């Protein structure tokens, strides 16, 4: 079977609606988390020009608490046909959730799927603060008693080793943070709108855990985001401009989850295999992208994810990762053009997908001229991870 006969999602589905709530600082949402999920879904339906009762499928990730059956009851949906949670990986599942939605549509399991994520961590447990327990067993027993607890601490040593192996400097991480903050200054939705970041402010910010400064770490926020997908042929009947899914891929490499930091490919964002599968399905090359949205849990993960998606080599990282290369519209590789998890909103990466749709529609606050193809990379360094590629009709 040659590449053109292989089973594929390429071009079979399209995003026809995007919506979000107002984005809040952590703990500041006046609304319950579930109400945020409903509001974002309604907004996405309005954007798509569809009756919310047309939704018959829900797809999410990261153990989202907004249960699809409750959503369907609240929205008065006539028939629920698809409810799918991507297993594991937290924000690494964001592009997989889109892929799962597309797979359901392409196989006729559902006709209109919403991909959604809602977070109001002030009402629940934060990620960046450890649980207080007296004893611990399993994998965590091998790390937590040594004070290795939070996500930043789980990933810092991967990044340290990668930077050591390839001679990559702190300035490369700084450029990634600066790009997100730069774009957030043009985006009124962004939590960090009106709060610019400078090189000096980055350098002087406190360490969280080396090699991560404060500004290398994502925010934690309250809010919700949603995207409506339908099959490509039905997208043409809707009022808006469809944005086509060219590929989605999820997974991780050999024994990525081996306990106690024993992944054979340790100093990695977990993306080499996923990127290969993604490009094969989309039939594109890394040089084809007009922009990249790359999930920032920590800037060091973005560094490795961009390299493992073939956008530049590890040896070129110090030279390529300069703010001027990463800024829209003129940069060689505009990155995180809404501000992303660092500066727009930590919507667990779904805001990056909404931004990709905006770029391809021509409605971004940091618009790239004639954008037709974009890459969205999900949360790096976890397992499984996932990526997606979107394009305009001319990119198909």
């Amino acid at each position, binding site marked *: 079977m040659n590449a053109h006969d292989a089973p594929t999602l390429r071009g079979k589905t399209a995003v026809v609606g995007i919506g979000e709530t107002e984005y809040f600082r952590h703990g500041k949402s006046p609304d319950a988390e579930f109400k945020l999920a409903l509001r974002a879904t309604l907004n996405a339906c309005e954007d798509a020009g569809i009756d919310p009762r047309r939704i018959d499928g829900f797809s999410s990730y990261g153990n989202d608490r907004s249960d699809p059956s409750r959503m369907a009851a609240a929205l008065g949906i006539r028939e629920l046909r698809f409810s799918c949670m991507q297993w594991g990986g937290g924000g690494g599942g964001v592009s997989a959730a889109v892929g799962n939605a597309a797979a359901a549509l392409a196989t006729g399991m559902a006709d209109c799927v919403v991909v959604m994520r809602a977070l109001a961590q002030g009402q629940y447990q934060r990620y960046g603060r450890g649980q207080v327990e007296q004893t611990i*067993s399993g994998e965590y027993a091998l790390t937590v008693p040594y*004070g290795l*607890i939070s996500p930043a601490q789980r990933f810092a040593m991967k990044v340290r080793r990668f930077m050591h192996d390839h001679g990559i400097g702190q300035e490369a991480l700084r450029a990634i943070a600066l790009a997100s903050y730069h774009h957030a200054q043009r985006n009124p939705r962004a939590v960090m709108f009106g709060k610019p970041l400078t090189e000096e402010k980055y350098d002087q910010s406190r360490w969280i*855990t080396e090699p991560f400064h404060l500004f290398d770490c994502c925010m934690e926020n309250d809010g919700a985001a949603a995207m409506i997908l339908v099959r490509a042929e039905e997208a043409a009947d809707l009022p808006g401009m469809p944005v086509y899914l060219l590929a989605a891929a999820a997974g991780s490499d050999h024994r990525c989850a081996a306990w106690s930091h024993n992944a054979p490919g340790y100093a990695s964002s977990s993306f080499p295999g996923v990127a290969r599968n993604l490009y094969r399905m989309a039939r594109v090359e890394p040089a084809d992208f007009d922009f990249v949205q790359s999930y920032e849990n920590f800037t060091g993960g973005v560094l490795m994810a961009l390299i493992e998606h073939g956008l530049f080599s590890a040896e070129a990282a110090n030279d390529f990762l300069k703010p001027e290369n990463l800024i829209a519209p003129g940069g060689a590789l505009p990155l995180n053009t809404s501000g992303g998890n660092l500066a727009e909103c930590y919507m667990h990466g779904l805001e990056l997908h909404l931004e990709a749709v905006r770029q391809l529609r021509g409605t971004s606050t940091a618009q790239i001229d004639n954008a037709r193809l974009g890459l969205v990379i999900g949360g790096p360094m976890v397992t499984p991870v996932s990526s997606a590629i979107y394009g305009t009709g001319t990119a198909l």
Partner: protein
Amino acid sequence: MTTSTNTTSANTTATRYLPPGLPAPVADADGLTAPYWDALRGERLLVQRCPRCHAWQWGPEWLCHRCHSLEIAYVEVAPAGVLYSWQRVWHPVHPALDQAGPYLIGLVELPDAGRVRMVGNILGDPLRPPRIGEPMRGVFEHAVDARQRPYTLLHWEPAAG
């Protein structure tokens, strides 16, 4: 901070590297990790090795990842390795650590045990720059949990130090 026993490659310390209050490690209810934690209390380091294909394995699992033998066993190895990576933690994420920082965490590779890796603290001055590739030796730290049950952690220090 450490007291050498001068008899083996490993040391012991009576001083806690981090303040009390972090969760104490206990063996899994299904028994998978019990041999490891039991042996540490006796100052012996165990990792898994397959008796059939001789693959090394860490962390522990019920199955040899290479040959799928369910007879995977624990074997004793010397607590000696090289530093594979490290981090210096400044921001506390647990109440017990609010006054503890900065502190060092190391990832140590065991060349004589199939290059498996172990997470532990790096003892000594937390501001000393660790060097990836430097030889490390294990240091056993004995402690008791909130209910006075003993447990032992395995830390690391530069072997040349």
